[in-house]
């Protein structure tokens, strides 16, 4: 039959390249490879940091040296050689203090390719944006508008210099330096990232956004995000990530700390599309990320993530429900194709009374990939009337992929109510044929089925992001039914 078969689709997929796989020729300053105390000091000096910051980094570095890489995750890879990575790379002309007109035109061209012209962003969307290329933050838009409300949104490097009291007070309070291997590494060498402070009672009038990009070869990216929502404030924060296609694996070890004070609300959305490696599993980003939020009284933190990229994803955005009546939410779509591996989920730590958490996880596996949900719900003895609802759904495509669910529940309080639901389904030939019969071609049919499967999570994303995420799902899964 002259039909467009799954084999054709596979061929197309093989020839289809990662859309963001370009590399931009930027004049960069890159540190020699390797890591020791001198490098840590040099990073700190390069960034003109105060003494306390240098000490903080060194403390983390010393702790890191004593630690070993975690091996409990359901992922298999060759461990990175931490002495073969450069820990600092910066586009030379990117000086965050300059205006847009001073930005390297190559850099601006790169943003255009990524579909994020800053000019356009400024005009069209109500999105304030920080962009981190390799290690440094290169542009923060909308600064002025935000200033009027007393909102601080800048690179973490600037924050260390300009708002040291806030940084010193909160940095490492949710994710301590010694929290885990990658968090310790990040604490020692983080080069940039975003900082955000929303004052008491302020409803942030626009979405805040950070766009991360690894450009330079042989570098790691270690960004650090610190977001503080003061009492009764609200903020919605978005982050997006891409990287060039490279044969070697690149390391990305970020830390995100959120602090939601009494009655505050933080909505944190991620669309992660790091380079996943080629179809044989060569190259791709190792995404080892620690994200955690702390809720005080009546506060709420929502994590929404769409994970389509990276060769390895190791990521558990968590919420510590410290205050009474606080709420934690985790909505996740994780897609793995070809040889990608994802071990992702969340931790909901109920400490306060009447705390509530919701976990909706949608895993989609195709090709030879492996997709694991790993989640912990812990109810402490003081957390009276805590509630959790977890739902983990897996969708499989073809016969060579895997979906795994590792839910951990620890309850020390008998008044807790914990619900866990899990399903595994497969895109059926009969579903595809049904769509075909109604005139919907196979590729479109798969997109439709996947979007339907992911709908509960997609609905949680801010509008512009939801459209992008939907497209990303389609691209990531093209040709994967078999």
């Amino acid at each position, binding site marked *: 039959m002259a039909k467009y078969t799954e084999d054709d689709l596979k061929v197309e997929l093989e020839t289809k390249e990662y859309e963001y796989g370009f590399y931009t020729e930027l004049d960069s300053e890159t540190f020699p490879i390797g890591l020791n105390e001198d490098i840590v000091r040099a990073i700190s000096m390069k960034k003109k940091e105060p003494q306390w910051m240098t000490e903080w980094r060194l403390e983390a570095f010393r702790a890191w040296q004593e630690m070993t890489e975690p091996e409990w995750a359901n992922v298999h890879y060759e461990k990175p050689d931490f002495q073969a990575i450069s820990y600092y790379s910066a586009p030379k002309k990117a000086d965050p203090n300059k205006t847009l007109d001073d930005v390297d035109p190559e850099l601006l061209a790169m943003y255009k390719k990524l579909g994020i012209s800053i000019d356009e962003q400024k005009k069209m969307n109500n999105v304030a944006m920080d962009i981190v290329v390799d290690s440094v933050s290169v542009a923060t838009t909308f600064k002025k508008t935000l200033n009027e409300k007393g909102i601080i949104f800048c690179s973490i490097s600037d924050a260390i210099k300009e708002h040291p009291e806030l940084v010193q007070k909160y940095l490492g309070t949710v994710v301590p330096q010694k929290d885990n291997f990658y968090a310790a590494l990040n604490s020692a060498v983080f080069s940039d990232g975003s900082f955000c402070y929303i004052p008491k009672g302020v409803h942030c009038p626009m979405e805040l956004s950070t766009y991360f990009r690894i450009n330079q070869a042989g570098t790691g990216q270690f960004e650090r995000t610190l977001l503080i929502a003061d009492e009764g404030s609200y903020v919605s924060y978005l982050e997006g990530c891409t990287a060039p296609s490279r044969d070697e694996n690149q390391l990305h070890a970020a830390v995100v700390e959120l602090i939601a004070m009494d009655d505050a609300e933080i909505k944190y959305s991620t669309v992660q599309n790091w380079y996943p490696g080629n179809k044989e599993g060569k190259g791709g980003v190792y995404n080892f990320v620690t994200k955690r939020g702390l809720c005080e009284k009546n506060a709420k933190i929502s994590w929404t993530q769409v994970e389509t990229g990276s060769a390895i994803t190791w990521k558990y955005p968590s919420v510590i429900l410290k205050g009474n009546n606080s709420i934690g939410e985790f909505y996740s779509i994780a897609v793995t194709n070809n040889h990608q591996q994802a071990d992702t989920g969340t931790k909901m730590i109920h400490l306060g009374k009447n705390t509530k958490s919701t976990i909706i996880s949608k895993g989609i596996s195709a090709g030879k990939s492996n997709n694991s949900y790993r989640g912990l719900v812990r109810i402490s003895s003081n957390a009276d009337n805590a509630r959790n609802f977890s739902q983990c759904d897996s969708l499989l495509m073809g016969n060579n992929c895997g979906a795994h669910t590792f839910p951990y529940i620890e309850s020390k309080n008998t008044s807790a109510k914990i619900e866990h639901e899990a399903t595994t389904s497969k895109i059926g030939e009969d579903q595809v044929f*049904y769509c*075909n019969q109604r*005139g*919907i*071609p*196979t590729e479109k049919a798969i997109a439709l*089925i996947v*979007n339907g499967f*992911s709908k509960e999570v997609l609905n949680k994303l801010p509008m512009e992001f939801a459209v992008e995420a939907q497209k990303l799902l389609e691209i990531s899964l093209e040709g994967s039914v078999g």
Partner: protein
Amino acid sequence: MLSIKNLHASIEDKEILKGINLEINAGEVHAIMGPNGAGKSTLSSIITGNENYEVTEGQILLEGEDISELAPEERAHKGIFLSFQYPVEIPGVSVTNFMKTAINESRKANGKEEMPANEMLKLIREKSELLEIDRKFLSRSLNEGFSGGEKKRNEIFQMAMLEPKLAILDETDSGLDIDALRIVANGVNKLKSQENAVLVITHYQRLLDYIIPDFVHVLMDGKIVKSGGKELALELEERGYDWIKQEQEV
């Protein structure tokens, strides 16, 4: 409209259809009846292009064009519609969204612009009234948690939306109570015109009380062994299929 010539087809090397000949003209309603395992559903699968079956011989012509090499969606774009015996569930995809996608894919394939939203809404309103469908129903996930009757009614609603040239109703009466059957049949009758045709595949005569066929064919062991008018259906209802078998053997 549809012309099937000496059609042979098999699944996993087992021959199911053994030389079917069938002519359906615009404006006609044909019924195919037959005992279980005669190949009735296979025939509908093959006309719509289900790849699990292999056509080993013969032709399927739609308005003179051989469609037997076309993909299922291409056949759909040319106006072939199947009301499934067992409609599948697609969680998270609303009936409305599904229909919107289907209609626009067909329009795209036929070189037309997407249907404007207001036109789409109007069409949905019109057709849901025709089939006495509660509008709330249309925002539910496709077939998920639908009763047997709701599924079948939804199939005919889709048929109404897509306005096919040839509609194949595969065991549409199964799972329907008498009221639902009447609504579904009324819907089909209202959609019938001189420009389109209907092929009803059924085990029982019941549906044919409501959708009156111009021709009735008996399918047995992969062949059409007898054709006649609507009275043939009544005779089958009364006497079963054995007498035809005996007639064949003589």
